[in-house]
């Protein structure tokens, strides 16, 4: 597995549609051994957090519905790992890994799902419709893919102020059929915005398969909007990272947007209520054999990493997180009408950026 080659070579599963020349030296985009452990850690943390959340849901402690990103961990982790502290993100519903990387604690995620006061939105929002503004995330709305346009606006602000910053957002392949997807692609292309679109093709939009969603693979549309489209194996965390890091470099250096299609599979139902009866067994098994965590973990073990210890650490982090979340109060009903209007200015904080490159940048 190589992190320094272009995404076209990293994946093997599919050929890229179009690939702009590399914008940064491969040296600048390298991963250290600690970075690799971090990639595995965040994938493990995402899965463990969602598994814990699902068991809380089954215990009746999570009101409403439940959605997760099982099988897609490499996408959100690999892409968000490329972000610098001052970059901004609009994170979608299968991308818990991106929240965790940016610095959201698993305990606050569990509290969020349970509608507790100590959660990220204090009970205003449930399951995955959240974003921690203090960590530079503008939380998603349900309507897909509205956040692509919001991300364009973040990028527009960076561009207008002459800042070398990137806005990243995610979308499912289902939402590529919606008009706002096209408006966002067009605006990003026309203004050459420093925005990175991560398209997660997890084979289904709810129950609707690719062949009922589009006539042309959406990654091919990027060229029509005037910018680069890249397709990678979405179950290969380093391939996703390499494509994302390069796209961020391109955006920072004025090279405009990138669309990265990550080919993956949603390994749970659309929500916990969905039995996936529409998924052909062979398809499911094909992807089950390519689990992004198992694959990556095997590689690191070969390199001598004690992944059992990493798993144990994640498990105890989740035990503590769940205890903390369950101890949080429910919100006070008297506050339900508060905060409809703002009386202060917006402030988006910076996110955590665990990639070693940013530590080096800070040290320099």
């Amino acid at each position: 597995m190589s992190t320094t080659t272009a995404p076209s070579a990293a994946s093997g599963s599919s050929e890229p549609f179009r690939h702009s020349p590399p914008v940064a030296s491969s040296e600048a985009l390298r991963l250290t051994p600690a970075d690799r452990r971090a990639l595995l850690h965040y994938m493990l943390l995402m899965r463990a957090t969602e598994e814990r959340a699902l068991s809380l849901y089954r215990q009746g402690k999570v009101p409403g519905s439940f959605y997760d990103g099982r099988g897609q961990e490499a996408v959100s982790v690999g892409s968000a790992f490329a972000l610098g502290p001052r970059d901004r993100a609009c994170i979608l519903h299968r991308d818990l890994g991106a929240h965790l990387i940016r610095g959201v604690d698993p305990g606050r995620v569990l509290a969020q799902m349970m509608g507790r006061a100590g959660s990220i939105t204090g009970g205003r929002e449930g399951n995955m419709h959240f974003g921690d503004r203090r960590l530079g995330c503008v939380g998603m709305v349900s309507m897909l893919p509205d956040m692509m346009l919001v991300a364009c606006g973040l990028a527009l602000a960076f561009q207008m102020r002459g800042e070398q910053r990137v806005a990243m957002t995610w979308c499912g392949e289902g939402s590529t059929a919606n008009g706002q997807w096209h408006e966002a692609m067009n605006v990003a292309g026309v203004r050459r915005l420093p925005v990175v679109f991560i398209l997660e093709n997890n084979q289904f939009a709810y129950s609707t398969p690719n062949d009922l969603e589009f006539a042309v693979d959406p990654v091919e549309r990027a060229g029509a909007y005037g910018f680069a489209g890249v397709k990678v194996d979405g179950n290969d965390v380093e391939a996703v990272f390499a494509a994302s890091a390069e796209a961020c470099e391109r955006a920072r250096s004025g090279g405009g947007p990138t669309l990265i299609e990550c080919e993956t599979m949603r390994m749970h139902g659309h929500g916990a209520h969905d039995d996936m009866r529409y998924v052909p067994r062979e398809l499911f098994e094909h992807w089950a054999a390519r689990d992004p965590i198992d694959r990556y973990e095997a590689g690191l073990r070969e390199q001598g990493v004690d992944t059992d210890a990493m798993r144990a650490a994640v498990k105890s982090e989740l035990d503590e997180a769940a205890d903390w979340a369950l101890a949080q109060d429910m919100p006070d009903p008297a506050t339900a009408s508060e905060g409809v209007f703002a009386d202060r200015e917006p402030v988006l904080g910076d996110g955590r950026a665990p990639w070693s490159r940013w530590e080096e940048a800070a040290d320099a």
Partner: protein
Amino acid sequence: MPETTYLQAISDGLREEMRHDDTVFCLGEDIGAFGGAFKVTDGFIEEFGGRRVWDTPLAESAIIGTAVGAAVEGLRPVCEMQFADFIACGFDQLVNVAAKMHYRQGLPVPLTVRLPSGGGFSGGPFHSQNPEAWFLQAPGLKVVAPSTPADAKGLLAAAIRDPNPVVYLEHKHLYRRAKGEVPEGRYEIPLGKARLAREGTDLTVIAYGAMVPLALEATEDMAGARVEVLDLRSLVPLDHDAVLASVRKTSKVVVLHEATRSCGVGAEVAALIAEEAFEDLDGPVVRVSAPDVPIPFSPPLERAVLPQVDDVREACRELLAY
């Protein structure tokens, strides 16, 4: 004080905010080289350049959506819909993304959306609408509708400086017809404060936007009756105190708007009065508005639908006699 048109006052207000605060920028269709369909931004691109005066593609969701993103990053976008009617195409970004942002995640969205609204010039069903009531059902949006040049400038400044998304309805009929003295320099008319357009004792007409001058004209000579005209200026927040104070004074109310009737601002004002000032009334609250039909194109049809001077006068006469 110099006399200016309503249109010029909006233009001046926007220009002054842009000169004073370099985070303010405007975006919309044909607002650059052409200066906007109604010329509000005439000369802006020459003064501020193409970055701060962004001629966008024809894409209303993109206009509102990118403005939301820029706003949460600390800029103050002012979006122009070419006609108010086209807000329907950007509605989702406004009511789902912008309006709910602060409630859901504590993130303010200082965004202004300018809506050239209203009929009376054969614009037909898609260039004549008064969509304000759509926004009253979207908590998190503020809604203003100035009726005079001075208010147009001051309310625009307040809208731009407010940390919330504000829908700013500018009535097209007033653009070149409404003239008045406008203070020079920057000033704000606070959001949520109504204005007594004329004091009276016998009946109150509550109106906003282009219906304020219509109300003044219709009730100028009412056979000795002194009719008060209250200009709401802001629909959200609605100035409850001003409405109730006027009802307590005159005890008779006509609510007048150009928008269609059902569940409109008139219905809201009438309900407020019924709840809070029932005992003060000496007659039913009367609504004068467009009926619940699209705005037709042909002049006689359009006149039949939009409130006219005679409709207002008749409604007032009947209520005074009640």
